[in-house]
């Protein structure tokens, strides 16, 4: 165990359904393999149906809190770029943002009961441009989905940003981007963005991922090596 590592704090942010809890489990197992204390925190239930999700992983010599404190993240892993920006709560100037170059648009719809069916079909139309500049009904003020440029400009004011086309790469290679998160954590271990050996990550993948999907996940791990 590297004696100099007192603690390492990771926050993973994304949207419900991106597999954040699986990534948390893999990193936690890898940290345990290397002899660290580890604690994590996650949320379950309705809030996970496509809403904002944030999970915490801490490992090191002595860990008490399962939650990362404000401004104490060493690494923020953003599976979605707008969510990464929300993650700045946990960032300081040394924080590294490892980002999946992907924006999942937030459906912003004006409350318009007369055309509810039109609204509904629009929502179900994944690429619909109408989604972009509508109305934040909760705050009753006009807000928009942020662009990649806006997000990067803001993130760079705070920490170091590493932007990786993980979803795109996985889509191209495997015809699915479901493994984008696996690609990112594997890459993080190869590039020393997480102080865990790649071997520990691959061992943890084997432990956590069900047999049925293991081959795809191990291929993803290998693909990250050649980035």
């Amino acid at each position, binding site marked *: 165990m590297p004696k100099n590592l007192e603690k390492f704090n990771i926050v993973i942010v994304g*949207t*419900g359904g991106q597999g954040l809890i699986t990534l948390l*489990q893999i990193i936690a*197992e890898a940290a*345990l393999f290397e002899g660290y*204390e*580890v*604690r*994590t*925190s*996650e*949320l*379950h*239930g*309705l*809030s*996970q*149906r*496509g*809403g*904002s999700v944030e999970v915490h992983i801490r490992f090191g010599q*002595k860990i*008490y*809190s*399962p*939650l*990362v*404190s*404000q*401004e104490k993240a060493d690494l923020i892993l953003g599976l979605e770029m*707008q*969510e990464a*920006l*929300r993650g*700045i*709560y946990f*960032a*300081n*100037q040394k924080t590294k943002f490892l980002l999946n170059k992907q924006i999942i648009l*937030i*459906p*912003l*719809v004006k*409350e318009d*009961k007369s055309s*509810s*069916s039109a609204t*509904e079909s629009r929502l*179900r139309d994944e690429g619909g441009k109408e989604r972009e500049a509508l109305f*934040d*009904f*909760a*705050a009753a003020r006009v*807000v*928009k*989905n*942020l662009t990649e440029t806006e997000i990067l400009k*803001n993130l760079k*004011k*705070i920490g170091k940003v590493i932007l990786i086309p993980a979803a795109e790469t996985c889509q191209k290679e495997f015809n699915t981007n479901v493994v984008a998160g696996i690609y990112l954590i594997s890459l993080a271990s190869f590039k020393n963005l997480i102080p865990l050996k790649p071997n520990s990550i691959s061992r943890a993948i084997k432990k956590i991922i069900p047999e049925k999907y293991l081959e795809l996940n191990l291929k993803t791990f290998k693909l990250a090596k050649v980035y």
Partner: protein
Amino acid sequence: MLQKPGKKIILLGNEAIVRGALESGVQFVSTYPGTPASEIGNTFFRIDKRAKIYFEFSTNEKVALEAAIGASFSGLKTLVAMKNFGTNVALDALIPFVYTGTKGPTVIISADDPSCHSSAQSEENTRGISYLVHIPILEPSDPQECKDFTKLAFKISEKFKIPVIIRTTTRVAHQRAPVKLSKVTKPGNVIGEFIKDPERFVTMPPRVLEMKKELLKKIEEIKKFSEKSPINQISRGRASVSSKLGVITSGVSYLYVREALKELNLNLPVLKLGFFYPLPEKKIQNFIKKFKKVLIVEELEPYLEKEIERLAKTANPKLQIFGKNLLPEVGELKPEIVTSTIAKFANYKLKIENLLKIENWKLKIPKRFPQLCPGCPYWLVFGAVKKAVDPKKVIFGGDIGCYMLAGLSPHFLQDYLSCMGSSIGIAHGIKKATNPAFAKASAGKQKLITFIGDSTFFHAGIPALINTVFNKSNPLIIVMENQTTAMTGHQPHPGAPLVPNGIKIEEIVKACGVKNLKIIDPINQEEFINAVKEFLEKSEVSVIIATHPCIFVAPKNA
């Protein structure tokens, strides 16, 4: 979950509770799912056959507890798990159970959710029921303690013949950390025997008052046990500061306190309370008697703080007690809140690293609310209702399930939301209040539609439906039959068709005396729209069973 002893494996708090129960030799487990307690039932559901124990998803928490009471009366080692609101539902059965006491040791898991991450109806602090019920409550901080405290709770229950509550919170139940495994105790003979003993199992006056005396005596005995218990632990600080200041805490707050003290490089004495009830009063009094100031770090209502104020009156009347004057009473604690509070308490200057002043950033990131899954049948139900009526002119009753999302964009079909099953009960009250019998036929006549899921209907909807029939009101009730308990992770419920010989909701509805009943797959939009229009005009209660499986339910004939 059934692995060998001696190993250290990463477990979720809820999984550690299961492991603790298995190591204790649990024989009978019942539950109704609810976040953040659901994984306890899910784990037992997965392993019950291999572990050779009895497990059931009960129809609601009261029934789950009653099943557990029956198992305990029959001598079995029993665990029952639920979320906080479930404990409210079960309360009617819980209070007499504490009077009769247990035969087979019984542990009840009750999971709170400060900040309401997965709880709609209120931010509850279940610790408060200890005063009402006189039931021992233990509060673990992490998965290791989840396991250890579950085992201890079984021991306490066995020794004192009383049920014991383990109260978790989201950050404990959904915390993962390595847990050291011990030996799983084989459940042995899981065939219990009910031995008649009316003195013990029948609560009726005048015996019930004797039982109360016995209960209070028991609690005094458990208090002595609590005084000596190592789960109420003191860590002494360095002499220089420790003579004046101390911290008392429990549950996950303890972990934030330790984190804060490390961060601030402060070494204050800390009393960590594993028992919330009964409190080790002498231990607390000894701890506080030399201090000038004490800080109570607890989430939500200041129950500990009030107890300590009382105890300080004799032990240390001059003691300055800090707690909710520095900490929030609403919302969960976070490590940064506890760190800044302890810094304030100890007059320690916190290095302000907050150069970025994040809170001043005017970042307009739109909120990302949860959504119904793509392909969810509820889209079809809400869509049809909107086409059938003018939503501005109809009242919409909500209930507990994924369909609570009716209240959010783009649906906006939810005008009230309370507890399980209440969409129907409240609908009846609204209909009665707004359409009283003595009003002329031409009066107001506000129309009302309620949405209730199938699992919620079984849980608490049926008595309310009977009431609308018996007391004659006419809401339109849409039972969303998606064939699963979707929101908490797709646990089974008693309904057909997934359960062989399952109960058909339409038969219940008919048996309740409902005449206006249609069963429609909402994929047939036109039929659904017409049924809504037709039923809203009826003078008696109407029910549409919107039947279409959740996308996570395997197609029946696949």
